[in-house]
C-alpha cells in the first residue's frame, strides 16, 4: 500500500503498551499481596478477602456475558447456587471430596447454562434479560421445595476439609485465591482463542460472524455455557469459602449485586479489576452492616455514577480533547 495510506492510518496509541504493562504489574503485585494475607491479616479479614475472591468469580461470570455477548444476565444466582449446592450436597450426603464436588458443580453449571441458552438462543436484549430474571427468581423456591436434600432454610454446612491439619480459614482463603487465579488465567487465554475472536466479531457484526462460521445460536450457547460454568465453579468455591450454603445467599438480589460488581469494574475480565468488583460487593455490606438499607442506596448511586461517567462524561471529554488536538494539528 502507498505511503499516503499509511500516514493516515492511526497507529497504536503510544502509551497503550505502557498501560498494558502497568495493569500487568498491578495484577502481579495484587497476587503477591494476596498470597501473604493469611499470615499477616487478622482472620476476619482473611475470611472477608476469601469471600471477595469467590464473589469476584461470580462477577466475572456476569462480565463474560456483557463483554462477549453484549447481553445482561440477572439470573447468575441460579448457576452459582447449582455449583454451591453441588459441593455441599456431595460432601454432606455422600462424603465426596471437595475437588470432585467442584468439578461436578462446574460441569453441572455448564449443562444448566446450555439448557437455558438452547430455548432462549434467539432472544436478545431486554427479552433475554427477562428470561434470565425468571431463572434467578425461582432459586429460593426450588431450594425450599427439595428440603430433604437441600436442608431447607437452614441450608448445609460445608467443612473445609481439603488438607487435614491446616486451619479451615487458611484452606478457605487459598482455595478462593486458587479458584480466582484459574478463572482469570482461563479467561485471558480465551480472549485470544478462536472462540474469543469469534464472539468479539459476533458482538459487533452478527451477520459477518455467521458468514464465517459462527451463527448467533452458537454465540448464545457458548457464552452461556462459559458464563454458567464460571458461575458454577464460583458457587462451589463460595460454598467452601463461606462454609455454608442456604437459600438466602442465592436470591435474585445476589445476581443484582454481581451485576453491580461487574459494572464498577467496567465489565473487565482482568484480575485486578474483577477482584475490585468482588471486593466492592463483599466489603460494602460488611462495613455498612449497621446502616441497613444504606447499602442498596450506595449500590444504586454507584451504578448511576459509573454508568453516567463512562457513557456520557468520558466520551464527551474524549471528543473535546480530540477536537482540540485536531485544531492544534491544523494550526
Amino acid at each position, binding site marked *: 500500500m*502507498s505511503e499516503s495510506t499509511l500516514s*493516515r492510518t492511526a497507529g497504536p496509541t503510544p502509551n497503550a503498551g505502557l498501560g498494558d504493562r502497568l495493569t500487568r504489574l498491578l495484577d502481579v503485585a495484587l497476587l503477591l499481596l494476596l498470597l501473604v494475607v493469611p499470615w499477616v491479616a487478622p482472620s476476619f479479614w482473611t475470611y472477608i478477602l476469601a469471600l471477595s475472591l469467590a464473589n469476584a468469580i461470580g462477577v466475572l461470570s456476569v462480565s463474560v456475558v456483557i463483554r462477549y455477548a453484549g447481553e445482561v444476565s440477572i439470573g447468575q444466582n441460579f448457576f452459582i447456587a447449582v455449583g454451591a449446592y453441588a459441593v455441599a450436597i456431595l460432601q454432606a450426603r455422600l462424603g465426596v471430596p471437595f475437588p470432585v464436588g467442584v468439578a461436578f458443580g462446574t460441569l453441572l453449571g455448564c449443562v444448566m447454562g446450555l439448557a437455558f441458552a438452547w430455548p432462549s438462543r434467539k432472544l436478545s436484549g431486554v427479552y433475554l434479560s427477562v428470561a434470565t430474571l425468571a431463572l434467578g427468581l425461582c432459586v429460593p423456591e426450588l431450594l425450599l421445595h427439595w428440603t430433604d436434600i437441600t436442608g431447607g432454610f437452614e441450608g448445609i454446612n460445608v467443612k473445609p476439609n481439603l488438607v487435614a491439619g491446616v486451619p479451615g480459614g487458611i484452606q478457605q482463603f487459598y482455595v478462593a485465591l486458587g479458584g480466582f487465579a484459574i478463572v482469570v488465567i482461563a479467561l485471558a487465554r480465551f480472549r485470544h482463542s478462536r472462540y474469543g475472536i469469534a464472539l468479539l466479531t459476533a458482538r459487533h457484526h452478527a451477520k459477518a460472524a455467521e458468514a*464465517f462460521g459462527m451463527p448467533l445460536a452458537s454465540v448464545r450457547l457458548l457464552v452461556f455455557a462459559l458464563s454458567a460454568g464460571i458461575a458454577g465453579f464460583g458457587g462451589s468455591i463460595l460454598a467452601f469459602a463461606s462454609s455454608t450454603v442456604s437459600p438466602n445467599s442465592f436470591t435474585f438480589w445476589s445476581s443484582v449485586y454481581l451485576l453491580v460488581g461487574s459494572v464498577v469494574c467496567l465489565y473487565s475480565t482482568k484480575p485486578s479489576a474483577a477482584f475490585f468488583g468482588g471486593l466492592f460487593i463483599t466489603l460494602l455490606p460488611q462495613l455498612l452492616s449497621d446502616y441497613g438499607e444504606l447499602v442498596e442506596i450506595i449500590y444504586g448511586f454507584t451504578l448511576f455514577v459509573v454508568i453516567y461517567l463512562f457513557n456520557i462524561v468520558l466520551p464527551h471529554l474524549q471528543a473535546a480533547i480530540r477536537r482540540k488536538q485536531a485544531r492544534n494539528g491544523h494550526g
Partner: protein
Amino acid sequence: MDMANHGAGLVAKEIKLAFGGLQVLNNVSVSFPPGVITGLIGPNGAGKTSFFNCLTGLYRPNSGDISLDGRALKGVSASRRARLGISRTFQHVALSPELSVAENVQFGLHASRKSGLADALLPLPSAWSDREESRHKAIEALSLVGLSHLADVPAGGVAPGTLRLVELARAMVGRPRVLLLDEPAAGLNSSETKDLVQTLRQIASRELVMVVVEHDMDLIMQICDVINVLNFGTLIAAGTPAEVQANPLVAEVYLGAADD
C-alpha cells in the same frame, strides 16, 4: 478454460427473493465459473447485496437453486457454506473494533480451525501451534494487501479505507473456493484502488471463483472477464466488458444514469 478439472463453480438457478411485497430478486440465473473474475453491477437497490446474501446463506431465497461444484446448497447454513469455502467481504465494513487487525483476519480461518473449547481455556500445547499457525497465515494474508505492519493495531484505530483491505485479507486468508467482494473499492482513493486491482489480479487463480460487485466502472472494466448486469432484481445483460459497454439497455439503466 479447463472447466472439467476445476468443477462447475457456483451456479444460481432462477433465484427469487421477496421481502413482503417487494420483489428483490426475480428469476436470477447466473453461473460463476472458477478461473474467471465475474463482475456484478447494477444501480442502487438492484439487489446485488441481497444476491450475495442468498449465495452465502444469510438470506433464504423464496425459490430457486444454488449449487457449488454440483453440490446443492439448499438447506445448507451460512456457517456450513463457509466451511465449504464460500467467503465474502461486506459492503459496510464488518470487522470487530475490539480485535487487533491480525485477529480480525484470523477470524477468516474460524470455520477451518479444529481447536476446541478445551484449547481455548487451558494451556495445552496443541492450542499454541494452532494459534501460531493461524496468526502466521493472517500475517501472510495481510502482506498480500500491504498491511502486515498493522497486525497488532486494534482495528478500531484504523482508517476506514484501510479496513476494507483488512476485510479482503480476512476473506482470502482461508484460501476460499469462492470469493464474493461487495464494493471492495468503496471509500478507497485512486492510488489505493490501483493497489487493490493489483492485489485482486494476484489472488485470482484457476481454481478461484471470484465475483465483484462494484460501482467503480473503471475497476470493473479493468479486472472482470465477464460482467452481469442486474436491474430491479432482474438480470438484463451479461457478457464481456466490451459487450456490456456496447449494450444499449445497460447504457440506459446504468451507465447512462451514471453520466447524468
